[in-house]
């Protein structure tokens, strides 16, 4: 184990500084919003946040100025440290707003936003200022794209080692050979969807009776919360508040789009239309969605809560799509899950959250790609069993191009899948140990660890601090797919015990 030298620590500090400057720049958006709506106290909160992030970011870059390029182990550690520091500075306006019960709660909400989870501990959400609401939704949109992807787009022109940062955030698709161009392509797709999605939602909100400015704000915020598969909304009733089938249909289209792999979006942009029906992730999602929908339908049919088929479908499809894409938007009260939907329907929702959606998207969970590959491994083994000994059996799958299933891919898929399953089990155990019923503990724990954000009512500011901290760490681990955090732990051990 090689002990990192001072130059290595300096490299990590300098690049972390750049990302933190980026977080400070993002805070200018809620600052302008607060000024536009004459929310002067809120503007001061954001001015303090911008000053703090600028001081930390520029200070780190000045103190640890370096011309060295990033290597893989640096990149992963930079991502881990940057997410932690970004959470700390991002929490400043939350804490100053007076809406948070503690610093732990403020950090929880920022981590929930950045990791596109959508659980929240903010109090009196229905009376939060426009500035702070803008910050909540900018956080989740930026987190969905990846704060490092944004930094790559604007702050890392031509940096060869930038790929290591990109990988560290759980994204490994290269839409172009150059990772900075890849980041800009992701930005292009997202901004196009932002323009279309915000317009559609704003028009519906306006038609529902909201004043124009409020309709635009709600359209923008709901788009950001949906496309990022984050699930934040500007009111405590979430999307239930609108009572509109048109609004719900638009939200489903937006959050399913957000859960698709950016490489798939880009293939469609290039005119490769067949990709939508051939891609292993799309097929995996369609199959698991149909299976879990049958489970949820069976649970709801048993409970008899929705006698009308159309209402039944509207509630079940929306919530399952929200869970499977790890969004967290809802059109039912949290406790309805426990007291009316019942354990069978809840298990269907939990299973959807466990798997999640696509790799290299804004979604969380194990991911459809890994489920697809594991299925292929099973099929390969079955074919081997029924084939002659001399036969060479291979499995193929399609993801942008055709692949032959390789041992290396299977190993990587199984490692991450086992890590996720272990984390889900641990989160459930923590909930049960704190006195919550098994199904509720599993629902809430999986929701946090898969970055979904649906709640069955376990998460409240009164929940034990140890659980709030455990949920915060789980959201972080789930979002960066473990590797960056493991790299940070390894970095720490090597610093202490390395040679």
């Amino acid at each position, binding site marked *: 184990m090689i002990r990192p030298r001072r130059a290595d620590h300096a490299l990590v500090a300098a690049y972390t500084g750049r990302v933190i400057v980026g977080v400070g720049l993002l805070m200018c958006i809620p600052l302008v919003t607060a000024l536009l709506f004459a929310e002067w106290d809120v503007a001061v909160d954001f001015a303090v946040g911008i000053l703090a992030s600028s001081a930390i970011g520029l200070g780190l870059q000045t103190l640890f100025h370096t011309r060295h390029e990033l290597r893989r182990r640096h990149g992963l550690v930079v991502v881990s440290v940057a997410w932690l520091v970004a959470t700390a500075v991002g929490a400043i306006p939350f804490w100053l707003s007076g809406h948070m019960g503690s610093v732990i709660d403020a950090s929880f909400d920022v981590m929930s936003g950045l990791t596109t989870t959508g659980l929240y501990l903010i109090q009196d959400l229905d009376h939060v200022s426009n500035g702070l609401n803008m910050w909540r939704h900018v956080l989740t949109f930026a987190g969905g794209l990846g704060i490092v992807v944004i930094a790559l787009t604007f702050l890392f022109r031509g940096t060869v080692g930038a790929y290591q940062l990109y990988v560290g955030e759980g994204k490994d698709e290269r839409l172009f050979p150059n990772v900075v161009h890849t980041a800009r392509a992701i930005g292009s797709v997202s901004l196009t969807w932002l323009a279309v999605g915000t317009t559609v939602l704003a028009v519906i909100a306006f038609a529902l009776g909201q004043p124009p400015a409020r309709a635009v704000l709600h359209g923008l915020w709901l788009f950001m919360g949906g496309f990022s598969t984050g699930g934040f909304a500007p009111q405590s009733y979430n999307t239930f508040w609108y009572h509109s089938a048109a609004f719900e249909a638009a939200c489903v289209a937006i959050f399913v*789009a957000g859960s698709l792999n950016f490489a798939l979006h880009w293939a469609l942009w290039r005119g490769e*239309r067949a990709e939508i029906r051939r891609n292993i992730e799309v097929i995996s999602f369609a199959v698991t969605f*149909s299976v879990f929908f049958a489970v949820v*339908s069976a649970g709801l049919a048993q409970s008899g809560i929705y006698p009308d088929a159309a209402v039944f479908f509207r509630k079940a*499809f929306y919530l399952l799509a929200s869970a499977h894409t790890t969004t967290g938007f809802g059109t039912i009260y949290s406790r309805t899950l426990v007291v009316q939907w019942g354990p069978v329907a809840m298990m269907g929702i939990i299973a959807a959250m466990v798997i999640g959606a696509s790799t290299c998207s804004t979604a969380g969970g194990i991911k459809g790609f890994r489920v697809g590959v594991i299925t292929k491994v099973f099929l390969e083994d079955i074919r081997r069993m029924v084939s002659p000994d001399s036969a060479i059996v291979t499995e193929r799958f399609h993801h942008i191009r055709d692949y032959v299933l390789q041992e290396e891919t299977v190993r990587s898929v199984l490692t991450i899948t086992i890590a996720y399953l272990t984390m889900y089990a641990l989160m459930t155990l923590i909930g049960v140990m704190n006195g919550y019923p098994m199904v509720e503990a599993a629902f809430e724990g999986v929701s946090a660890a898969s970055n979904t954000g649906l709640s069955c009512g376990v998460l409240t500011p009164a929940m034990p601090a140890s659980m709030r901290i455990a949920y915060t760490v789980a959201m972080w681990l789930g979002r960066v797919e473990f590797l960056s955090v493991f790299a940070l732990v390894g970095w720490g051990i090597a610093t202490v015990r390395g040679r």
Partner: protein
Amino acid sequence: MVERAAIGRPIAAIGIEVAAVAALASVAFLVELLVRWSLQ
């Protein structure tokens, strides 16, 4: 670095993605009807 050929297609891509969601909803509705009918 956005390819020129790609710039004219984003709206068509969005249309395909929305159509895919509609197809998924259609399948889900059939699943619901099947489950409700079989549990009656």
